[in-house]
């Protein structure tokens, strides 16, 4: 085994962006046929390293070798494509073209200089069959599920000769069953000699699918080891640089709430696009979880409560007053603060500053007649940065320059700015590193202590631990309710629709 040269080896890699050091003496060795995990907090340098390994970013120093050979020049894209491919979190599929066209984009088979459509269809069917992707080649690529889309992208990379595939957080948008299927496929491909570099924030997955793990922190290589030699505690320590930092808040450790508390939110018979007959009550100082797979309808329920989506039936009442459906302004005015599902889609205006984003929900409260006094606005922004611990150059910095965790804190700030009575948080820690996750959940706890009611819609066990009660959704209905102190197995079983043993 020692005889085989590493399939990919990068050593002494350095990269700077102006004053920011993105990588310093980073290195990684991926052996042929293994599935290698790359983990680290947001901003640790993973994306930059991936960019360098795929030849999209030029390193300032250091060397990349493929199977012992020096990497091709950056301009030779074809040579890079034969060696390495990356499946990004964000789709690189062109939605309005067919799957066949997507598979052969840029290298369509030609006949007398024109595209040979018949061969294109035949070849793509062969590729899909060879790599076991069960989709029709003439289907519109935009209609694929996230899962199938990823498989098509993997097949595309393989068909172009790459035997080393980087998967950038492939599980982030998948639910439990889909992740299981993805892992099964990865194991099959691994057996067929494909090598993977697997990036994920979910450490459990690293233990499940990977043989070796490389940890990065603060732009440096920290450790590379077989996963078997690196138990979870040590792995987290390597990622955060601190021992025992995994202490997330668990509602089971605080005294049970008295049942008599006043109801803040009362939802009755709510129905929408992908859910129906949802009723629930949240009292002041209570944290209620809405658990379920991505497709369970839990997101729709939360969005409807926050006014982001219209309801087709039922009522949402805050403090006894019914809210007009589908009206965000009314919801905010009534006292609802919301962290939407995706910070890029609905949470932030990336080009605007931290201060601007954090005060966006209170635009009319910063001065008379809708005018915003610069001092008041500045102070509000600074106060948000302080209280949420947002690491930024100041209120004027565009949020596009912040790390994912800090961006998410800005979204949280925006939700808290209006001093709401009810917080609706949808996937509040998605794509966020361990420390930011802790900080964000800490703010949930603070809000709870201040007497705010909180709803957390999530499928993350760590997000749900803080909840006094977790309502589990399946196929658009609430199917189970677990008080704090539930076991992980029981909750996951309920989310997956398995009856508890």
């Amino acid at each position, binding site marked *: 085994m020692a005889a085989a040269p590493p399939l990919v080896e990068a050593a002494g890699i350095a990269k700077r962006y102006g004053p920011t050091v993105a990588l310093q003496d980073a290195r990684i060795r991926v052996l042929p046929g293994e599935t290698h995990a790359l983990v680290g907090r947001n901003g640790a340098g993973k994306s930059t390293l991936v960019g360098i390994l795929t030849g999209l970013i030029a390193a300032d120093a250091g060397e990349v070798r493929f199977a012992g050979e020096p990497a091709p020049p950056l301009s030779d894209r074809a040579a890079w494509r034969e060696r390495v491919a990356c499946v990004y979190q964000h789709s690189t599929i062109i939605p309005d073209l067919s799957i066949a066209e997507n598979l052969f984009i840029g290298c369509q088979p030609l006949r007398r200089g024109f595209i040979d459509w018949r061969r294109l269809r035949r070849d793509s069917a062969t590729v899909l069959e060879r790599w076991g992707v069960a989709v029709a080649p003439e289907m519109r690529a935009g209609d694929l599920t996230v899962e199938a889309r990823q498989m098509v992208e993997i097949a595309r990379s393989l068909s172009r000769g790459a035997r080393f595939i980087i998967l950038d957080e492939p599980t982030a948008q998948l639910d439990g069953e889909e992740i299981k299927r993805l892992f099964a496929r990865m194991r099959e491909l691994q057996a067929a000699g494909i090598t993977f570099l697997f990036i994920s924030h979910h450490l459990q997955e690293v233990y499940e699918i990977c043989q070796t793990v490389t940890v990065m922190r603060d732009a440096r290589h920290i450790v590379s080891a077989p996963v078997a030699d690196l138990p979870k505690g040590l792995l987290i320590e390597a990622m955060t640089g601190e021992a025992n930092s995994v202490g997330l808040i668990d509602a089971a450790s605080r005294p049970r709430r008295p049942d008599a508390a006043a109801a803040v939110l009362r939802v009755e018979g709510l129905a929408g696009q992908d859910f129906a007959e949802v009723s629930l009550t949240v009292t002041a100082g209570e944290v209620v979880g809405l658990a379920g797979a991505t497709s369970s309808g839990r997101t729709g329920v939360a969005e409807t409560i926050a006014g982001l989506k219209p309801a087709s039936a039922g009522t949402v009442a805050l403090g006894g007053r019914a809210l007009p459906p589908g009206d*965000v302004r009314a919801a905010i005015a009534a006292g609802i603060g919301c962290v939407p599902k995706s910070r890029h889609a609905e949470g*932030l205006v990336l080009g*605007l500053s931290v201060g601007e984003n954090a005060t966006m929900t209170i635009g009319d409260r910063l001065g008379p007649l809708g005018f915003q006094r610069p001092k008041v606005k500045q102070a509000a922004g600074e106060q948000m940065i302080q209280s949420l611990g947002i690491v930024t150059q100041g209120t004027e910095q565009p949020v596009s320059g912040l790390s994912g965790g800090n961006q998410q804190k800005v979204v949280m700030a925006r939700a808290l700015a209006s001093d709401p009575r009810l917080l609706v948080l949808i996937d509040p820690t998605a794509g966020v590193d361990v420390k930011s996750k802790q900080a964000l959940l800490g703010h949930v706890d603070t809000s709870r202590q201040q007497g705010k009611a909180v709803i957390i819609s999530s499928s993350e066990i760590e997000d749900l631990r803080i909840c006094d009660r977790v309502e589990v959704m399946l196929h658009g209905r609430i199917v189970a309710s677990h008080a704090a102190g539930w076991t992980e197995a029981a909750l996951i079983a309920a989310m997956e629709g398995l009856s508890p043993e």
Partner: protein
Amino acid sequence: MSSPTVSRAIPGAPAPAQRPSRRIGRLRDVALLPALILLVIIGAFLSPSFLTYPNLVSILGASAALAILVLAESLIILVGKFDLSLESTCGFAPAIGAMLVLPVASQGFGTGWPTWLAMFTVLVIGGVIGLLNGFMVVKLRLNAFIVTLAMLIVLRGMLVGVTKGGTLFDMPDAFFVLATTTILGLPLSVWIAGAAFALAGAILKYHRIGRALYAIGGNAPAARAAGIAVERITWGVFILGGVLAGFAGLIITGYVGAINANQGNGMIFTVFAAAVIGGISLDGGRGTMLGALSGVLLLGVVQNLLTLAQVPSFWIQAIYGVIILGSLMAARLTSGDTRG
């Protein structure tokens, strides 16, 4: 706790970069200033009459209508939309206004409306056109480009139709007042355009609706989720744009002294050029009034110089176009921005 080289990873660190980043923001606003100064110097060498007071006043006067149109278009572009029909509105609206006053003998409708009411109607017509554009773009979610292009053609055709391709004269003096009245040596239109830019600039910076324009143009779903009335504001901006275009039409009428069926024809290209040169991003969400104004002045000076330099009139269009292309490239280089 972490390595000292990772500057952004140090929590609670002071904010050393705050000042420079703000200064850069302002620098971008005045990115055109060097080009403007250079043009003025070139102009001074090119023609002795360039740097004279009457000529400078004439540049400003000639730019006033364009300035108002650029203001209108900039607001619409800021929310991430387009309105090509502004150029037709600024011909159509004043023409209808004039015809409401004029007798049949002067090609009017013969309705004999009072002058003030007719002039007010010019603005209302602009507003109604904006309302229609807004309805189709915001409510029906049609593409702004094609909707307003169609509107441009419809209005142009209607203008030719109602005037039978002719020219309207003999309007009451009030129709020309914007160009003929001077206050402290400058035409009224220039004062109003200046004030409009100052007001728009202040609202964009200090009023929640102004800030909302940036939020909507930057990311409309995020603005909506923050409780901003995205549809209402976008629609409102279309209406305001139409009103301003009607007003710009009155300024043009004042300078020309008549309304012909071609009024405003081809202006939209210059309007977009001035806005984009001035740093208004066509993607929406970025740009300032100061930038847009400097774009207007730059084009105004260029136009004036071309005339003074006695460029053969048949060639003025081509050279003007080339200069606009050059300015676009120069603006990109000086702002050092890789986006939009």
